[in-house]
């Protein structure tokens, strides 16, 4: 390969979850890929919790997988406990989640990257982006290396001007024990990008043999685990290692409460805004004062690990306060730390400066993905990395760009949200952010997206075969059900489809009555069954989507001076001028732009 041919090179400045998906997508689409990382051994490292998926995040992993991305495949390989969350609440909000062996996960990912022909790993720090005529032309490393390129993707996580806080101590860092990145953020600011500061936190890691497990409750995974990837071989028989649950108590809360002034969040040292959703434990005890206890999950970071992650106890208190407070919990009365919890404050760039392809609206070939866009979470980062990677490659290939709508995917919801809404805390995916949730289920991610991944060129032949076999089998299941009529003990035979529509009836119950049904894969049965149960409701959603689609894709000219449009409200004019949405649909989702503003715009555009 000719690594320095500018025309077909994409540089990715980071090897976290966004950087991995971006690198693999670019490389697999046949473009020379240079992955610049501060530390090649840190590629794929999980900075925070040892788990992938969860509510709404599991949807993202399934969608990444459906498009030909990597995260789901790797999570299935390195998972040590699989659990479907939210099972009591309706299939559209079920959240597949798996505990990871962090060491295996990162090791496997590095192997995958090394085996990819088009990727070259360069160890170093990217400090500057060269731009000619509003187009990216090269990335400059700290040692002076000049890498000419057509596009650059910046998935820099929490590294940009990162600063760690533990109590009133603070020091520059990108992650615990790793240096921050300073040059890159200055380069972006120099290019005119507007930025802000955000904060996120991580809990302490404690020593396994300092825990009295006899006083903790054991929690293990599902008996019938569901893998993330359709490419993972069936039957799926992963490990099922237990983790443990303990509960905080009022003594534990009192210690934290009395030390609030020592928390950088509360003493005002941290300027960045923290997430409301996975708040620090000091946030929790203040915000939910009436709750006497919170659950903490003691999760091993890898198989046989002595290092235990205290899920639910994210904090930036001084180490002694963290320890003292945890020691109030009987199972942790002798707890010893490997390292304390900490908060990290970092730069993010206002994502409304990006198109829905994650490319800058101003500079061709400059893509931002992951926490740099104000999001939080591995899955959110990976999803953006994938989209940025695809589009950087398409740019090199001189093909049309690719973006997903919020009507077909959570990835679409995520990106549409961040490019149209103001981010005032780290953005985490939630199912409530998707208006058409019933259509966007984890189980049908491939049905929604795999054909699109195939069209892009990211879905391999083997992957596509699996998909087509699944489609065929689903059709066979439907045909079988349509012919069958059964009697579930009422004395009257009813069409199987009708029986299936009743709540709580599943295909596994029908299997004994309908011959041949149990020869199909559980995944295929589940999707057909859910489609049948949701038909009418999904139709209603589709009608709403049709209504919205009447304005969704009307594109807005790039040169409109919104300030001159006097029939729009003042707030709408200012917001539109600043954000410059690409379509009327995007404009309609900007806070402060009312339906009548949209109507006005729509009429003016004619």
């Amino acid at each position, binding site marked *: 390969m000719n690594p320095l041919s500018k025309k077909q090179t994409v540089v990715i400045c980071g090897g976290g979850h966004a950087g991995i998906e971006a690198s693999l997508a670019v490389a697999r689409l046949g473009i020379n890929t240079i992955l610049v990382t501060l530390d090649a051994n840190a590629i794929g490292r999980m900075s925070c919790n040892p788990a992938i998926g969860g509510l709404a995040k599991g949807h993202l992993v399934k969608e990444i997988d459906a498009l030909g991305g990597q995260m789901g495949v790797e999570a299935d390989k390195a998972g040590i406990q699989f659990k479907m969350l939210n099972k009591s609440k309706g299939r559209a909000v079920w959240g597949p989640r798996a505990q990871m062996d962090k060491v295996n996960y990162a090791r496997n990912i590095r192997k995958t990257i090394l085996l990819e022909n088009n990727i070259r790993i360069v160890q170093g720090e990217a400090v500057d982006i060269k731009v000619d005529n509003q187009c990216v032309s090269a990335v400059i490393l700290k040692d002076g290396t000049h890498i000419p390129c057509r596009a650059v993707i910046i998935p820099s996580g929490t590294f940009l001007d990162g600063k760690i806080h533990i109590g009133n101590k603070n020091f520059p860092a990108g992650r615990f024990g790793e240096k921050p990145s300073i040059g890159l953020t200055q380069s972006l600011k120099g290019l005119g990008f507007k930025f802000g500061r955000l904060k996120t936190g991580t809990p302490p890691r404690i020593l396994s043999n300092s825990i009295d497990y006899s006083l903790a409750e054991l929690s293990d995974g599902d008996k019938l685990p569901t893998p993330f990837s359709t490419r993972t071989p069936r039957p799926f028989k992963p490990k099922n290692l237990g983790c443990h649950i303990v509960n905080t108590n009022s003594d534990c809360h009192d210690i934290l409460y009395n030390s609030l002034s020592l928390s950088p969040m509360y003493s005002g040292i941290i300027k960045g805004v923290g997430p409301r959703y996975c708040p620090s434990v000091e946030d929790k005890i203040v915000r939910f004062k009436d709750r006497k206890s919170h659950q903490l999950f003691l999760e091993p970071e890898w198989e046989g690990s002595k290092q235990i992650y205290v899920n639910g106890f994210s904090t930036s208190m001084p180490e002694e306060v963290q320890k003292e407070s945890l020691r109030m919990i009987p199972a942790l009365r002798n707890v010893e730390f490997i390292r304390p919890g900490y908060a990290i404050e970092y730069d993010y760039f206002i994502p409304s400066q990006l198109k829905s392809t994650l490319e800058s609206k101003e500079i061709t070939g400059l893509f931002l993905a992951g926490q740099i866009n104000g999001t939080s979470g591995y899955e959110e980062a990976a999803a953006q990395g994938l989209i940025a990677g695809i589009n950087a490659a398409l740019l090199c290939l001189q093909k049309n760009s690719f973006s997903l709508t919020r009507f077909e995917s959570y990835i679409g919801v995520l990106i549409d949200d961040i490019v149209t809404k103001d981010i005032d805390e780290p953005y985490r995916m939630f199912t409530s952010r998707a208006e058409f949730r019933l259509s966007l289920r984890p189980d049908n991610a491939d049905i929604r997206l795999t054909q699109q991944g195939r069209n892009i060129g990211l879905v391999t032949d083997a992957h596509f075969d699996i998909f087509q076999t699944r489609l065929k089998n689903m059709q066979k299941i439907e045909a079988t059900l349509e012919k069958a009529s059964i009697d579930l003990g009422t004395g009257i035979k009813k069409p199987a489809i009708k029986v299936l529509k009743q709540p709580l009836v599943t295909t596994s119950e029908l299997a004994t009555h309908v011959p041949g049904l149990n020869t199909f894969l559980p995944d295929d049965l589940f999707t057909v069954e859910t489609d049948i149960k949701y038909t009418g409701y999904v139709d209603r959603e589709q009608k709403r989507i049709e209504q919205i689609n009447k304005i969704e894709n009307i594109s807005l000219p790039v040169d409109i001076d919104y300030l001159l449009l006097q029939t729009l409200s003042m707030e709408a004019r200012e917001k539109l001028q600043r954000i410059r949405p690409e379509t009327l649909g995007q404009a309609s989702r900007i806070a402060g732009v009312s*339906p009548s503003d949209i109507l*006005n715009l729509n009429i003016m555009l004619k």
Partner: protein
Amino acid sequence: MVNYVNDTIAALATPYGVGAIAVIRISGEDLKPLIPQLTDKSKLTPRYATLVTLKSPASGIKIDQSIITFFPGPDSYTGEDLIEISCHGGEYISRSILSELIALGVRSANPGEFSYRAFMNGKIDLVQAEAISSLTQARTGSDVGANLGNLTGKLSDRINQLRAGLLNILSIIEHELDFQEDEISFTDRDMIMERLSSVESSLSDIACTAAFGKTITNGVRLVLLGRPNTGKSSLFNTILGHERAIVSNVPGTTRDTLESWFDLGGIPVCLVDTAGYWESGDFLENLGITKTIMEVKKSDFILFVDDVDPVNLFSKLNLTLSHDRVIFIKSKVDGQTMISDEESLFYTSSKNDTGIRKLITYISTAIHDSIHEINYGDGLLMTQRQRALIISSKGLINNIISEVKNQTEMDIIASLLHSLSNNLDEVVGNITNKEIVKNIFTKFCVGK
């Protein structure tokens, strides 16, 4: 009206023809330069009625002495600068003023364009716009009152309140869907059920107003039915004779019917004489005629007239009609006094004018009973569009309640609640659909 541009528009806001005064409205982004061109004043105090001499900008020739009021935007009806000229009536003066304006580059307004601009500039919502359209066509006092209520935002307030309640339930459900069981504490279904029921009952209250709203806009149809020569036409004239407030005498769409409108306690009532259908032929045979059936179907009440035994005759006809929609009249009881032993049977004599007053009182009560009369100042559903949306919303909330009872999962419930909220949003016009909006404003007259 197809395009919306914010050029300056003008139109006569009062009807064409002879009158004491005529009002011309002008609206546009900046009307200040118009003032010295058109009047003997260089500027006008905002919102003060000022006496001016109107002149032709080109020739300087005086046109009229008029009262002119300048409403600077955004505090005007349209949200733009607005001028109202009250000039002397008569076609000549108003036409001269308009042609001078057009010479200055002002465009003749399309029907409804002033209100359309008001809507587009956020001065009124869709329900208010509809109320304005209806006000100009109001037939009775109740009609005016109800539309005034809606104009001042009464219906919009009720809908918005309902929507707020709905969003409250939705936010609870959404919150619970977003978190795991161990992260937050959950509300039980009973509480959600309770709140849904309260939404249902408010929605029912609003839906109830539909009948009344429809009645005072569309009126009530009373159809006289009976064999030939039983005195239907005499009764028709006698009833109208009692109710002096005849609104109009409309010949039927065919030569066979005669319709006449009168105001019965605020409700517009249309009395229909079907005599023409069968005076020439066999009554029973003619009843089968589609036209007759149509008329019966369209009616709100049937006045079934017979000079022998209306109740008995009616029962032989096998008409599938609910009995509370039929009022029986034994006609031609001239000279005798008879007391009816049935609530809905009346003895009348058009010749002696007996029994008529009692009949009318009964009709009036029956109408008012049938329409859930309510305080119309509180906001009523007045248009077909509003009614259709509320009826579908009512269906939806009942559906949601039964789904919750059936233990349907919350993701589905949330989706249905979102649909409901969208429906309500559409009632008050939080919609981006150009077609619906255009459709509403095309019903306006010029100058509104």
